């Protein structure tokens, strides 16, 4: 994130005004963020560890975990390759329309996941433009596992890109140019020069992408058909359990996703500390 500020940070001692600002700011932001976090683990573990474990290993839940992992497992490599290619294009070359391209790539971050799901069905669903034709050829891409995988990939496509691009832009092009002048090929330059330079941003982007793809809800709810034990992902399973009023079970599944989110944050903090200390 931001490195060291230009004005040094000042201590609070002897300044009641500063202390009040910190209490208000940290209190409001901290409570908004940590209360839901604490609630997830409190309600998940309320009936004890044995109940918690039995909720996690219920067959429908295990199936949902497997399906979410499958979707994330396919979305991740696709988005990593896409993110690196797109960031390389934008950081290493000048061409008109770069700002427009960035906006288009980041579009899935701003538009509602519901709209992405609906728009997807208008291409690949039976009411869509390609769906009936694909169906005639034995390919179904709606209300099944394939559709879950594809929309998850679409929704999480900007994450690796977004982490890598700013770093590539600040690093510039000199190292690549030097490498090419010294006789290295394009791929060799990418693997030996560019990728090692952005390694940590890629790793964090992949983790964030992983957390988001396991946790995608709106778009998946539209395209999945939501068949219990078949096309239910972890978040759809949470939705089902919560509305079945099996609260501890819903929070047990939620606690897995929350733990992954926490690991992602720890990793991010660690990566930033490395960046600052290596500056």
């Amino acid at each position, binding site marked *: *994130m*931001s*490195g*060291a*500020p*230009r*004005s040094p*940070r*000042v201590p609070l001692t002897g300044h009641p005004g500063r202390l009040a600002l910190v209490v208000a*700011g*940290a209190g409001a*932001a901290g409570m*908004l*963020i*940590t209360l839901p*976090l604490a*609630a997830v683990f409190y*309600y998940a573990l309320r009936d004890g560890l044995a109940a918690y474990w039995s909720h996690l290993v219920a067959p429908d839940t295990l199936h949902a975990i497997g399906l979410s992992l499958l979707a994330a497992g396919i979305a991740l490599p696709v988005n990593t*390759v*896409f993110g690196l*290619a*797109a960031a*390389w294009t934008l950081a*290493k*070359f000048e061409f008109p329309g770069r700002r427009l*391209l960035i906006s*288009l790539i980041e*579009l*899935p*971050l701003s*538009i*509602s*996941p*519901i*709209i992405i*799901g*609906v*728009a997807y*069905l*208008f*291409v690949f669903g039976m009411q869509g*433009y390609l769906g009936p034709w694909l169906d005639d050829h034995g390919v179904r891409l709606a209300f099944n596992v394939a559709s879950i995988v594809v929309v998850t990939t*679409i929704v999480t*496509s900007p994450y690796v890109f977004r982490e890598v691009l700013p770093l590539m832009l600040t690093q510039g092009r000199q190292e*690549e140019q030097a490498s090419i*002048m010294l006789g290295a090929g394009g791929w060799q330059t990418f693997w030996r020069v560019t990728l090692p330079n952005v390694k940590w941003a890629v790793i964090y982007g992949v983790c*964030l992408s992983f957390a*988001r793809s396991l*946790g995608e*809800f709106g778009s998946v*709810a*539209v395209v999945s058909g939501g068949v219990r034990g078949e096309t239910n992902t972890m*978040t759809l399973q949470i939705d089902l359990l919560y509305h079945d009023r099996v609260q501890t079970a819903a929070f047990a599944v*939620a606690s897995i996703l929350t733990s*992954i*989110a*926490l690991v992602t*944050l*720890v990793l991010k*903090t660690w990566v930033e500390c490395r960046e600052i200390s290596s500056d």
Partner: protein
Amino acid sequence: MPRPRVIPGFGLALGGTLAFLSLATLLPLGALALKTAGLSWAEFWGYVADPRAVSTYRVTLFAATVATGFNIVIGVLAAWILVRYEFPGRRLLDAAIDLPFALPTAVAGIALATLTVPTGPVGQLFAPFGIKIAYAFPGIILAMMFTSLPFIVRTVQPVLADLEPQLEEAAASLGAGPASTFFHVILPELLPSILAGGALALVRSLGEFGAVVFIAGNLPFKTEISALLIYIRMDEFDYVGAAALATVILAAALVLLLAMNLLQSRLYRRFHG
């Protein structure tokens, strides 16, 4: 003037990027627009000006605006204390700000709803005063605040860290107090980043689904958001109705993003010449 490119791979990388982008984003959004374009004006108007649909626009827009307003205050304050003061737990708070980015929205939704129902730990505090949070309007605002807070903090924070200390020293030596320095010297410098972050937060809140549906109560004409109505129309196999509504919401988001982009670059030019 075109210079020879030293680095190879432009064609492959740009081609791959555009191919993926076309398949993943442009093709579906184009299909959505095409589906809607097949409607006559009267049919289109019938869907998007339906009273239930109009009430969802009002609920969504109002809640998102209020949530963004609250978040601007909390977000700028959080960015300020993170950049300016040294206090115990600062690094932890800094790391925690990103949690809503990483936490699935559905998880946030059930956690916030369970906390704020009248019998929940937070809801209990408000229930004696007759204030309902979950299954009422404040719940929608709360859910939107949670998912969009990091946008504001993370846009303002680097700009604040990069401010020249001389500006404030000059203001102080000319006799301005801390509050006056903040509102007359620092805030104008931060304004473009506040607007940019606020726009991102607003657009994000307008489209938020997972966090809101669990806490909103989802009563038509009262606490139903637009994204949910689109979902319901799809569920009822009313594909054309869903397409018309989705197109309106999509167009609104795009116009808002574009307007904020233009405004931001104008402000930037005004302050930086």
